[in-house]
């Protein structure tokens, strides 16, 4: 009898034993529905402001976009009519892409070194990577602003990119590190056994296996950068990103075009997430079938 069979047997015996003296099964009737119902309601609650934002991107707004005046596609068709919205969006895209690329490259290198090599000051380096994540954004923003001020660096796109790369870096390290730790070392050993040089083993085995983790880290970095307001506001000077545009527009009323951009980004991000999830699910199924066949 294998261990699994023993466990399964044990479980059936156990359930038979315990169910008999326990009459109040009806009590679970309510319990059975309580949790699913709560979960659905909780998710609906989480979606309320998202639905609200998307709905108001179709509002026939005049100056401010507060009360509902009727349905229109005009905001979607003339996104750039509102001065500033598209410039801010373009800045955010540029900053997001540059910060993501730099943070992903630097972070992946650190993650590989941390998992694969032993060196002194390892603990100190881990702490140095953890600390930015434990620092409130307002402290990080003020610190960078104080540094740029005392160094005489003018605030602008460059300072925003430097700041965004910083807070993305730690998240990349953590995400990629988790992926490396879950790699099966046997695959690399097989590569070495087949006389692969270290470089070949890295680029043809390790890197492709790490790629999903690296892409996930890049996606996370971009969304962190794109939506960051607090650190950006301290270091942006006169440059407007999409969040700082919304913050400054909040006093006089947000144009519906801002809702259009936010909604479009949201739908695109959800599409990417759902596609990757379906893809990885079908890959997992294919792999499972392949291993069964073997």
């Amino acid at each position, binding site marked *: 009898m294998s261990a699994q069979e023993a466990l399964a047997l044990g479980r059936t015996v*156990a359930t038979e034993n*315990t169910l008999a003296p326990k009459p109040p099964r009806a009590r679970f009737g309510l319990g059975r529905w309580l*949790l699913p119902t*709560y*979960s659905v309601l909780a*998710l609906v609650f*989480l*979606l*309320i*402001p*998202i639905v609200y*934002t998307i709905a*108001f991107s179709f509002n026939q707004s005049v100056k401010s976009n*507060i009360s509902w005046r009727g349905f229109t596609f005009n905001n979607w068709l003339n996104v750039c009519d509102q001065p500033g919205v598209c410039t801010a969006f373009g800045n955010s895209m540029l900053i997001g892409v540059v910060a993501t690329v730099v943070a992903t490259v*630097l*972070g992946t290198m*650190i993650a590989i*070194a941390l998992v*694969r*090599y*032993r*060196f002194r000051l390892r603990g100190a*380096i881990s702490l*140095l990577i*953890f600390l*930015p994540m*434990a*620092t*409130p954004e*307002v*402290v990080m923003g*003020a*610190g960078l602003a*104080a*540094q740029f*001020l*005392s160094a005489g660096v003018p605030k602008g796109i460059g300072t925003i990119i430097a*700041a965004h*790369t*910083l807070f993305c*870096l730690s998240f990349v390290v*953590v995400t990629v590190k988790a992926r490396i730790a879950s790699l099966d070392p046997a695959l690399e050993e097989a590569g070495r056994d087949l006389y692969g040089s270290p470089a070949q083993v890295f680029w043809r085995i390790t890197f492709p296996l790490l790629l999903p983790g690296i892409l996930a880290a890049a996606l996370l970095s971009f*969304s962190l950068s794109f*939506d960051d*307001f*607090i650190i950006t506001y*301290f270091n942006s000077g006169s440059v407007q990103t*999409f*969040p700082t545009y*919304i*913050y400054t527009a*909040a*006093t006089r009323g947000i144009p519906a075009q*801002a809702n259009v951009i*936010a909604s479009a980004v*949201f739908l695109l*991000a*959800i599409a990417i997430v759902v596609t990757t*999830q379906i893809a990885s*699910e079908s890959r997992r199924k294919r792999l499972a079938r392949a291993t069964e066949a073997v």
Partner: protein
Amino acid sequence: MAIAALAGPTVTQEAPRKKSRIALVLLLPGIFYLVLFFIVPFISLVITSLQVPSETNFGQFDTAFNWQTYVDVVGQYSTQILRSFFFALLATVFALLFSYPLAYFIGVKARRWPLLQGLMLVLVIAPFFISFLLRTLAWKQILSDEGFVVSALKALSVLGPQDHITGTPVAVVFGLTYNFIPFMCLPLYTTLERLDVRYLEASNDLYAGPFATFRKVTIPLSLPGIVSGTLLTFIPAAGDYVNASSEFLGGSSSTMMGNVIQSNFLVQLNYPAAAALSIILMAIILVIVSAYVRRSGTDDLL
């Protein structure tokens, strides 16, 4: 976790030490970046906090060793400092109470249906993908005096005719809770997803009721998720100034530390006060975090 701890050193020990030059090459650029843009700014924050106003150039500050700023800001802003941590604590507790059942359902009950699990997970992180500020503004509109929530609560006499929701501490704590729920939910889900249900069955077999099982088995096993979720909620909530700012959900009676730092730094250009407050915020958070992590006994957050 014990297995990971055992496996960790043995795998790395195989890595030959002579390759440490490669490690250096891999580490150096990133570490240099962190030192330049994290350590150095922190030092300049400390230096700034000790500066005194220049006597010759108005609006400039001279390097000094002026501890008085710290005493002044603590005296002047003690209400906001206490309020920040109180609001952050409330938001963390509410987010935990809200998220735990949801994460439990997705991670444990929905295991049989991977597609449903995936879909629910996407919905939990969905708020991440729409602008944080617009989300908060949407709540401001929904909870505004003209909105149906306020009219409904007034009809039910929960709110008096002159009462508001926006601009009150209730709205700020509500906004903080809402905005950080995904940060709470995801780590909870990650640990609950790995929860071995056979432990729950074993507990049931040993005549523990559902409540005892939950308290003695489920909660201890999901403790790492609870710890990282509460930290991921508490830290940003304590430093947040968007929810509490008067253009969003807050008002004059709900100003937090972040608002004070922001206005001192960017509006009043009183850099030493803003820097001193930042250092105080950071120090309190580090003390709370390290005490909390030590008490809950999960050291490997990374």
